[in-house]
């Protein structure tokens, strides 16, 4: 059992007790009065008290008694919006991140540190990751789009957009960056570790990170839900077919005000997602800037395209049977017929019908359902999905494969005539 050492208790508590029962422990009260309050802060520590230089050039107004610095900071570090680049070489977190991602040595730690500074933390484009992220975003979207085009040549345009977003959208890249083990600083500043992601919880960055123009009618589209066609989306909107929105209009003042008082809300989560996805893009951009085309392609394949996305879940058909008969008419197949392959429990509460869709002697799709109508439409949907999800093979060549030296000449990829359009 340990001996209680009352003299090492904090001065404040002992002073408070001394008034109440001064007669019982007069000695303790005497001691507590003798101990100065500032010394009580580190009284339980056996290490030497850190020598804090009182130089104005080094420090500016930080309470060093409460927050002693962990390392010796360069001059005026705390006045900068983001850590100075030379500190990147001493950061253990950055070195660990580079080792975890197996990044080549050609990629300097300073660039990796810059990829972790969001535009909302430091609005100077020479020190934040905007430029790297723009390059990275273009590269990721290019590689994802060309792979989807060659691997699933019959995907309709809106499914292609959804798949693009599923692979390279902000939510996915946010998860990718989190899986890399990147942590974020509570608040950006020059004194934080350069290995931490830095973004502001109070304002979104004003960096332009993609193509697409802001429509003049965007407000009306949001308010009145105006229809905008797919070809319209191809021309005006961003790489995922979504209307380009201003960063300012996403601001929600109420949530913004609460961001400091509560642990996190919808607004701060959106900011974190944007910052993390920008960081992932910036890392890709940094790899391209320092090592070139082939390593960045391998990196995108390994970290973005290797993720599992079930494309068959992206489809939704309004009139599947009609679309299937249109398809059969277009391709000169026999008109589709639905046939009951097997059934069980027709009179019971939970029957199961297995319906197949045939065109001539060939079966196009099959599905089981609790009613004949249900199974029939589901079978038609499966047939349409297997049409749209045709793939030439698992390991298709993409156009960027011919950019390497002594590559085989390019054979034209399969181009489909287009999706089925109802008349």
């Amino acid at each position, binding site marked *: 059992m340990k001996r209680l050492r009352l003299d090492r208790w904090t001065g404040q508590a002992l002073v408070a007790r001394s008034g109440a029962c001064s007669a019982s422990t007069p000695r303790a009260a005497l001691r507590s009065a003798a101990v100065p309050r500032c010394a009580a802060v580190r009284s339980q520590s056996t290490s030497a008290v850190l020598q804090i230089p009182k130089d104005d050039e080094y420090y500016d107004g930080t309470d060093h008694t409460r927050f002693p610095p962990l390392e010796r900071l360069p001059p005026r570090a705390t006045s900068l919006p983001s850590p100075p680049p030379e500190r990147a070489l001493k950061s253990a977190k950055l070195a660990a991140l580079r080792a975890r991602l197996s990044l080549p040595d050609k990629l300097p730690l300073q660039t990796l540190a810059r990829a972790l500074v969001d535009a909302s933390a430091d609005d100077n484009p020479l020190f934040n990751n905007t430029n790297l992220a723009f390059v990275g975003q273009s590269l990721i979207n290019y590689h994802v789009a060309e792979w989807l085009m060659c691997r699933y040549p019959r995907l309709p345009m809106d499914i292609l957009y959804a798949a693009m977003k599923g692979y390279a959208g902000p939510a996915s890249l946010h998860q990718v960056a989190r899986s890399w083990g990147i942590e974020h600083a509570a608040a950006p500043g020059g004194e934080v570790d350069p290995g931490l992601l830095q973004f502001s919880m109070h304002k979104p960055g004003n960096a332009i990170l993609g193509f697409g123009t802001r429509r003049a009618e965007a407000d009306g589209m949001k308010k009145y839900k105006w229809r905008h066609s797919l070809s319209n989306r191809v021309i005006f909107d961003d790489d995922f077919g979504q209307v380009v929105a201003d960063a300012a209009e996403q601001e929600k003042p109420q949530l913004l005000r609460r961001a400091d008082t509560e642990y996190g809300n919808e607004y701060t989560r959106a900011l974190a997602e944007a910052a993390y996805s920008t960081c992932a893009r910036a890392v890709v951009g940094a790899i391209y800037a320092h090592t070139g085309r082939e390593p960045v392609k391998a990196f995108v394949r390994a970290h973005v395209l290797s993720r599992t996305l079930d494309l068959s879940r992206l489809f939704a058909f309004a009139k599947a049977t009609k679309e299937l008969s249109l398809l059969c008419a277009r391709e000169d197949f026999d008109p589709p017929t639905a*046939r009951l392959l097997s059934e069980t429990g027709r009179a019971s509460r939970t029957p199961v019908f297995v319906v*197949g869709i045939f065109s001539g002697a*060939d079966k196009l799709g099959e599905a089981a359902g609790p009613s004949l109508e249900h199974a029939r439409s589901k079978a038609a949907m499966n047939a349409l999905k297997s049409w749209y999800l045709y793939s030439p093979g698992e390991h298709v060549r993409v156009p960027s494969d011919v950019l390497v030296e002594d590559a085989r000449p390019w054979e034209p990829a399969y181009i489909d005539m287009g999706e089925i359009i109802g008349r």
Partner: protein
Amino acid sequence: MEAIVVRPAVSCCRSAVSAGPTSSRLLLNTLPTGIRQKSTSARTRRALNIPPHPSFLNANNSTGNSGPDGLRGTRRDTDQIIFNPPSSAPSVFHTPFKFLPKNDPRRRANLTSSLFASSTTIHYNATQQQSSSTSPTSMPAEQTFSPEDFPMAEGPVVLKPRHHLAKADIEEMRRLRETDPVTNSVQSLARQYQCSKLFVLMCCQAPREHQDKIKAGLEKTKERWGPRRRAAREERARREGMLRTGEL
């Protein structure tokens, strides 16, 4: 052999139970050991000892063998790959042969489905099966089907448009609907002109008052619905939506 012994015992027990329902519990309790329970490990082992799937057996021997062990057959002794997957819904990522493009290598090589067919695949095309059954690897005595063997599972019958109505007929239909929408309902007009109700709806529009009256009547009906009926209808609509998005 055990099954043969057991089944008459079960049936006679059942008949005894059905004969005297009042004393059924008593009867079951007092019955002698007619039913062989899996009380011992030997009986359990024997009960679980079911013959293997035919694809695991040697095809040539099992057909000729008529001895007491004929059901069991013999294990395959040659080096063969046994592919016997569990039955499951077909994947949409396996493109049907008909959907392959003209220049696809799978089509060029004429790798028909019989080559890749598993033991559980039903062959729909009888002629294809016959041509491939000459190869020694095909399954013996497998039943062949053609699509015509299965009953049709078509949805509601959609009549083909006959295009028999002239412009004057449509004008007349509109006039009738405009003057008296109650007697000239959509259904009666469709019957009168021998066209679909959809076509009547495409041609004519009832007067505003009539539409409002119908709408008010519908609202009144909906007000009478209780929570159960409302919830059931909502759930049905939700199920339809889930079916379209592939969640169901």
